[in-house]
């Protein structure tokens, strides 16, 4: 079944361009490995870093295996609490990916619905929505996320805050990403709404809601898919930045950014691996998503097809 679907996909024009692009294939493979590893973290990771029983402070600051003084049990070494770096990274990427996907879906729903409605309905509603996105775009996403986080801290008690961190981050990143979606979908809707099949639907008498979401939306999903992919890596990076700044995930539940922040303290005392491996991991993850997004943008753009 799945093999048949993959075969069908590879037979289409897009699938063909995928097969021919080494970059697309390798970045998909890397991305899928990371996604599956993080989904199956409990099985794949050698240790559970959140299980206090498996952690021994005696093992703290063990270097990776190719450095002198290493321990064969910890391939990439351990951090200051004796947690296995590889395991914490796998668990950390799970958090990063969850936040990335969730916030992008949130941004996509918000941005696409505002973009389609404002593009289709026009008038004052469009002016208001588009000025909102303009204002939103003037605020750097990190600043926006800090703002949301700050407000959330004011409302949520400190004890709850650590548990709520994931929702606050999804909301914060989602809010800073939606204008991209709104602008792109509005532009695509403006093109689509003057096409004759939309006029035909209007003449039949279909309601605006049906026309917008049943007829227009499926036809503008390609650009949305492209910015969603590039936005995903953006969201992961934003999350890491926030965690690095200390407003993201707490040390008890570290994401990649939190790991980098810890490691940063030990960078100059010789324990470079604590920050180095999470940083490399983040770069590889973001790069694979970006390269995939780049390929997708070219492959889904009919104007660039001949290249």
């Amino acid at each position, binding site marked *: 079944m799945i093999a048949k679907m993959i075969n069908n996909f590879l037979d289409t024009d897009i699938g*063909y361009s995928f097969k021919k692009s080494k970059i697309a294939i390798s970045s998909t493979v890397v991305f899928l490995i990371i996604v599956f590893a993080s989904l199956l973290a409990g099985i794949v990771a050698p240790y559970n870093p959140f299980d206090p029983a498996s952690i021994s402070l005696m093992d703290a600051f063990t270097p990776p295996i190719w450095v002198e003084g290493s321990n064969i049990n910890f391939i990439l070494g351990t951090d200051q609490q004796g947690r296995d770096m590889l395991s914490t990274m796998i668990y950390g990427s799970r958090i990063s990916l969850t936040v990335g996907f969730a916030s992008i879906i949130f941004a996509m729903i918000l941005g696409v619905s505002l973009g389609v409605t404002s593009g289709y309905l026009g008038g004052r509603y469009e002016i208001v929505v588009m000025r909102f996105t303009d204002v939103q775009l003037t605020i750097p996403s990190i600043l926006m996320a800090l703002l949301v986080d700050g407000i959330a801290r004011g409302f949520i008690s400190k004890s709850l805050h650590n548990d709520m961190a994931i929702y606050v981050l999804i909301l914060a990143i989602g809010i800073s990403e939606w204008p991209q979606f709104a602008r792109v979908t509005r532009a695509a809707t403006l093109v689509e709404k003057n*096409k*004759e*099949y939309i*006029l*035909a*639907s*209007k*003449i*039949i*008498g*279909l309601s605006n809601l049906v026309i917008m979401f049943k*007829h227009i939306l*499926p*036809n503008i999903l390609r650009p949305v898919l492209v910015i969603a992919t590039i936005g995903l890596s953006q969201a992961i990076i934003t999350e890491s930045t926030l965690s690095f700044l200390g407003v993201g995930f707490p040390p008890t539940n570290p994401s990649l950014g939190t790991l980098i922040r810890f490691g940063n303290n030990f960078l100059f005392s010789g324990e470079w691996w604590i920050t180095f491996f999470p940083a490399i991991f983040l770069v590889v993850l973001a790069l694979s998503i970006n390269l995939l997004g780049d390929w997708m943008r070219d492959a889904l753009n009919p104007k660039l097809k*001949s290249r």
Partner: protein
Amino acid sequence: MSFLDIKDLDIEYQTRKETIEAGKNVSFSLERGEIIGIVGESGSGKSTVANAIINLIDKPGKITNGSIKLDGIEFCNNENIVQSVRGKKIGFIFQDPQTSLNPLFKIKDQLIETIQTHLKLNHNDAEKKSIDLLREVGIENPEKRINEYPHQFSGGMRQRVVIALAISCEPDLIIADEPTTALDVSIQFKILKLLKQLTIKRNLGVIIITHDMGVIAETTDRVVVMRLGKIVEQGKTTEILSNPQSIECKSLVMSVPPTNKKIDRFKLLNPEGKQVTNSSINLTNSIIKNWGVREINNKKLLDFINVTKIFDDNAIISTKKSENKIKALDRVSFQIFEGESFGLVGESGSGKSTIAKIVSSLISPTSGEVYFENVSLHDPKNKLIKNKFRGQIQMIFQDPYSSLNPRFKVKNIIAEPIKFFQKNIGSDLINKNVNDLIDIVGMSRQSLERYPHEFSGGQRQRISIARALATRPRLLICDEPTSALDVSIQAQVLNLLKDLQDQLNLTILFISHDLPVIRQMCDRTTVLKNGIVCETAETENIFNKPKHPYTKELLNLMPKIESVV
């Protein structure tokens, strides 16, 4: 030895799945002072051959065999030689004057640049020559206009500039790829006249590529008829048009709507050369059973009274005075009676499509009234009325490529209006209706499970018609329904529309810029110019005894295939 000699040219496009032969054994020749026409339907390879001459075939296409000789010099696959003559010995005129000039440069710069690339002239001489060229192609006041940008010229004037560019380096051969397709009839006439004059005056060889048999008849000395990459017939234009030999050519000539008489149905040939009769008539019986018989009583169906439409740019503060606003329609009135087909004809900008949009309630008129069955369609106090008549007025659009939602299966495209108007309908009945509809537009039921992109333009137009019929409309608006189609497909679609009208007692509002088509389709016709009605009369009277000077001019200028027969 001829001036241009093309022999056994094979052109192939290698795609992932198959190799497409865009040209096969193409051979023809051209003398100086002669205009040759290449005619064929879309996909016949006529543009490919023209591009092959100047080695501009897009990848993955390539010339695999044959020779192209200009004055005895071999061109084929020799980029160095072609580069040196392209623009200099061979001028090219493209279809769309809107995009073939660079909008960022003045006309002067574009002309001088081209001239200086090929001729050794200094800037002043080149400018002088440019002015002369513009005068030669009939642009008034060239000294002043040469300093303008392309957007300051109208479509016809821009095409003249393109011609000036093409002849600027004194080429011996001009290739014109659909040079007048994007232009109105009156401008088309002038451009073709200009091309003919230049051919004689400068002793040029000219290749005109077109799908329009009228243009071929009026302009060319000899004609090459192509189909699916092969030449099916070539010879003197008069002979080919009056006495075609091959089946393909016969069917092409037969499908052209005659300008001098009204015929009942177009005759169609099947690939074996036998005449085919349309079979859609019997099929409509089942749908009539479903819908019930509708009687015609020749009463007034649509009344369009003094309608004016002004397009406002929707600025919050309007700086324009009301006199300066563009009136798309200016006090237009006409009536359509039940069961007739009513034609609207006019050039671009005459307001034809605006009328279609007002009748279909897509936009509201600025002033005036539209009555459907004596009920006002645009009564602001009574919005429900509009919805009541939604199903009764339906429309077929011009562009078959954008009028169907590409993400819907054909089945769902046709079923959607049925579901919308009959909320409680069962899925059996929907399927039955959809099957009936696809039958009467003459397509197979297998096509219901496919997506629009799998169909050709004519088939898509049939699907559009099925969708429009799904609500069982009384008034069907056809906005240029065949102008994007090949003539033989046009003939089929027009036949289908006539059959449907007879069987289903439809009233048709038929909008076209194409006078021969109007003559074949319409009982009564209104001629529009710049949003003003010139005259309304029986179609035969309009063609035989035009009253308004504009109508006379249009009739005079339209290319007539009969002119050579």
